[in-house]
């Protein structure tokens, strides 16, 4: 199925794409068909800067377990360092 479900998030940070580092302003989060990963559906993350064009994008496709493990690791790291 195409889930078409997408959440967008405003961000402040940087990402490294095919042309080097750029400022990341937005992210898209969706569970849908991957372009590259060998799975029918993956949790897809696009780190974007639309002002710089469609090529300013860092893309990640993760299976659902990996995505949850990543999300929990991010929470643990931030909590343990007192950053949040």
């Amino acid at each position: 199925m195409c889930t078409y479900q997408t959440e967008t998030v405003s961000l402040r940070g940087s990402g490294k794409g095919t042309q080097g580092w750029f400022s990341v302003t937005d992210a898209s989060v969706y569970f849908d068909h991957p372009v590259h990963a060998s799975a029918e559906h993956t949790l897809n993350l696009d780190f974007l800067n639309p002002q710089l064009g469609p090529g300013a994008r860092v893309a990640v496709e993760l299976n659902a377990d990996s995505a949850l493990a990543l999300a929990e690791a991010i929470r643990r790291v931030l909590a343990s360092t007192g950053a949040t």
Partner: protein
Amino acid sequence: MREDIRAETVEIAGHGGDQIEAYQAQPLDDDQVGAVVVIHHMPGYDAWSKEVTRTFAARGYLAICPNLYSRDAAGASPDDAAAAVRAKGGVPDERLVGDVGGAAAYLRSLSASNGKVGVIGYCSGGRQSFLSACSLPLDAAVVCYGAFIAADPPADSPLKGRSLLRLAPKLACPVLGLFGAEDQHPSPEEIATLEQTLRDQGADFEFHTYPAAGHAFFDPNRPSFRHEAAKAGWEEIWQFYGRLLAGEGS
């Protein structure tokens, strides 16, 4: 049929006269033949969409696949372009109709055209194929697992498109629908709703739903590929277009 073809990137006039990129393929034979507009899937104007376009040409049809993301992401890689358009909620329906109409007019202008034009679309393109068939003078429409033809997207979806049932009475050509029984977008219920609507209005249509197949079963580059369903689906397409696009145009 020699299966010899020429394939190339061209520019065509799309919605509002905008010049948009398109991939055109045609047989080298001099016969007057039918034509097909290929509407690419949501992942965009990618290698598989071009392969499908060449497949139609090898079977004796003029074929063209307009890059529906031309304006949003000119020159970008297909996956970057698809991500950008997805974030915007997809291609607006009005623009889609203009682009497909422009592609159909381009095909009819070719010296090898017999005047007949069909349309085929996959995934989001399946919905757009039905939209085109309700909006443009076409001769045949193939809908491959298009969702949100007979149902609205979820309320929290960023998709701009809505159910097309309000347009169904304007359907102006026969429709072939090819679906996977395990797909949820479109769900079996949505397919049944569309089927009932078309039956009630006396439309010329045929639907085939393949067991053990879900979404995107035609695409051999994805784990969702289902050989039996794809093979059977292609056979239906050749019969459908063979019946409706052959001979002299209207």
